[in-house]
């Protein structure tokens, strides 16, 4: 008994064929003729042996060469690798199917091999396992199962024995011990397009749509909404993505690229101080979270190494964020502090912040002393402002020497 999925596949093909043949002016006689012909062509016993012959025009691969260059011709590669929690995105660490390329006229064979039978296994999987179920279905008077099976499985075999790479594929020398391995770098189209699918699910799933709607109206929702920003799109194959591979064609020849860039110093947003860096550029509220954590640690009764360590690391993290601002100012055109509007800015701050003094800064002990004292004062004041609603006398001031000692430890970072 033919699997219903296979029957359906053949029926669909037959209908498409008939639709093309039978026009409104086709006579009843001709129509009957076409139908007879279709019934024979799209019966398994005649369609399948023909398909088995055409399967070799296709290649089932995991890493199609044409993603490297549209005219790169290489041996078909089907990679398999073990799954491991090794922290890498690579073949083996994502479950994906195979891609296929070859003569477009033979793509129906690929579709046929991808049909899922009743047991959820594909025709191809059945063939590879040579299951009795598939053998019974694919046995015909004129053609043996073996002929059919060998023919179809040619989709996974190369007709040439020699391995072939191409001058159009990037070939990289990698040092191994005292010698090299030469690596031809290919694209796992299946993993690449799986990434696209996952990102699109994040963005366009029904849940995402519902959450987006709620967010737009600022309504509460139990759902969350995720997004990946600053994606780029890369195209393969131009207006003919089908020339690259089937997966490529299904994806309209476009894949997503994730951004992999350092942050940019935000030169345009930073304010150039006119009188005081500490008053004009630093904003205590920005560090609320850190100061609150610090406060909890400072008032905690426990006083062990662990707590002290944690406390110092929170302080350092605040200082580092301040230094990030310093470096943004230093990345402005050297000499910006010469402008008249900066006349009131104390000289040590100018030396600290303007890159025209970059050369002398590290040997200027007096400058560092002034800056570290000012910074300690700012830290204690900001701390006080953030964590206390009422002005508690002494709070913050007590910490001044401690703040100074941490600043001193960060000297290299501050200069």
């Amino acid at each position: 008994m033919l699997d219903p999925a296979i029957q359906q596949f053949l029926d669909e093909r037959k209908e498409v064929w008939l639709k093309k043949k039978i026009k409104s002016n086709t006579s009843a006689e001709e129509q009957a003729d076409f139908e007879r012909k279709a019934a024979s062509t799209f019966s398994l016993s005649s369609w399948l042996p023909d398909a088995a012959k055409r399967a070799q025009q296709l290649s089932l691969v995991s890493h199609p060469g044409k993603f490297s260059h549209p005219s790169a011709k290489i041996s078909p590669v089907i990679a398999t690798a073990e799954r491991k929690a090794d922290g890498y995105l690579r073949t083996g660490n994502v479950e994906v199917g195979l891609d296929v390329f070859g003569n477009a006229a033979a793509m129906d064979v690929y579709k046929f091999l991808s049909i899922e039978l009743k047991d959820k296994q594909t025709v191809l999987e059945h063939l590879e396992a040579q299951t009795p179920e598939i053998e019974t279905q694919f046995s015909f008077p004129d053609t043996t199962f073996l002929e059919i099976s060998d023919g179809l499985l040619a989709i996974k075999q190369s007709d040439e024995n020699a391995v072939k790479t191409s001058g159009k594929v990037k070939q990289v020398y990698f040092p191994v011990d005292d010698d090299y391995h030469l690596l031809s770098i290919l694209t796992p189209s299946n993993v690449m397009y799986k990434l696209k699918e996952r990102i699109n699910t994040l963005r366009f799933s029904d849940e995402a749509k519902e959450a987006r709607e709620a967010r737009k109206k600022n309504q509460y929702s139990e759902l969350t909404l995720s997004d990946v920003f600053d994606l780029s799109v890369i195209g393969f194959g131009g207006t003919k993505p089908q020339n690259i591979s089937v997966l490529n064609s299904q994806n309209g020849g476009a894949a997503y690229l994730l951004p992999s860039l350092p942050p940019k110093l935000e030169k345009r947003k930073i304010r150039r101080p006119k009188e005081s860096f500490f008053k004009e550029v630093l904003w205590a509220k920005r560090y609320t979270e850190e100061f609150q954590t610090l406060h909890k640690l400072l008032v905690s009764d426990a006083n062990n190494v662990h707590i002290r360590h944690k406390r110092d690391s929170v302080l350092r993290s605040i200082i580092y964020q301040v230094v990030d601002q310093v470096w943004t100012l230093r990345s402005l055109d050297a000499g910006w502090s010469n402008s008249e509007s900066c006349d009131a800015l104390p000289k040590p701050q100018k030396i600290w912040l303007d890159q025209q003094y970059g050369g002398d800064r590290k040997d200027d002990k007096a400058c560092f002393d002034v800056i570290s004292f000012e910074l300690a004062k700012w830290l204690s004041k900001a701390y006080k402002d953030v964590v206390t609603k009422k002005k508690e006398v002494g709070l913050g001031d007590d910490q001044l020497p401690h703040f100074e000692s941490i600043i001193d430890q960060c000297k290299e970072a501050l200069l």
Partner: protein
Amino acid sequence: MAKKENVASVLAFEKKLVPSDGFMYGTTWEGRNDTVSPLKLKEKSVRGTISNRLKAAIKNDPLKLNAEVEKPNLQRVDSCALAPEQDTLKLSFTLKVLSGVEQPSACNSEVFLASYSAAAKGYIEEKGFTELARRYATNIASGRFLWRNRVGSEKLEVHVKVSNSDEAWVFDSTAFSTRNFDASTTELEALAAKIADALSGKTSFLLLEINAFAQIGKAQDVYPSEELVLDKGNSKGGKSKILYHINDVAGMHSQKVGNALRTIDTWYPDFETLNVGPIAIEPYGAVTNLGKAYRNPKVKADFFTLFDKFAQGEKLESQEEEHYVMGVLVRGGVFGESGKE
């Protein structure tokens, strides 16, 4: 036909003329050596008029034509112009000239490598790159790299300085034609000699600082490179022209500068009759804006045909063919057997 083992299926050359991007500044002719200011791009909306060829059905129906012409054709474009008080464009770039043309960056046939290297060394010894260098120098002196910005300029000057040295020249570009390479001055020959020495390895390396000045008139438009955006955004109302800038300074792509510098090929078939002038050195003599290739393999004038002979040690028919082959190698590219398609 060459024997199989004598053929390199993987063969690549790095370019030997390496220009930087060109940076565009505005200045005045009188003050050109003193004060310049970076030119910025401006975005503007233009209301275009219908100037494309219309379908006959519209063209021949006055009502439809009117309606069509009155459709607002709003476009947003980048533009760039001199300030009202400026009349001169300054274009600055550097050019690195390297040696080592006899050494491919990748080659997988030792037999081929040996015969090619010998042929290349022979050329260097015999010709010393003097003809190519003179042509490159002329393209620097003439300011060909200004492209459209050169057109209609009243005065035109190119300053060339050898980096880390006192050697420098000033060229009056109007004295050099862009149609031929006949002009010769002491300065030009001196610059050409420098380039030839670097290409042939007599000196290891040459870095030129090049500043061109074109007096084009107050507040006139200038033409930075246009960006080729492989648009995937699909949004409506996007910009229809995007110009190149480097950190907010209007710029000319290094590729475009390089293309002008290697526009030295006057040796292609039908040069005399076609009246196209010199074309850029390319494997098939392709000229992008004309959409044509002037060195067709059918008449055996293309690089691959000539190079196969040259690299096997065969004598080419003329020294012009040798110059052309070496010109393509200076340009660089992937020329392996599998790269011919």
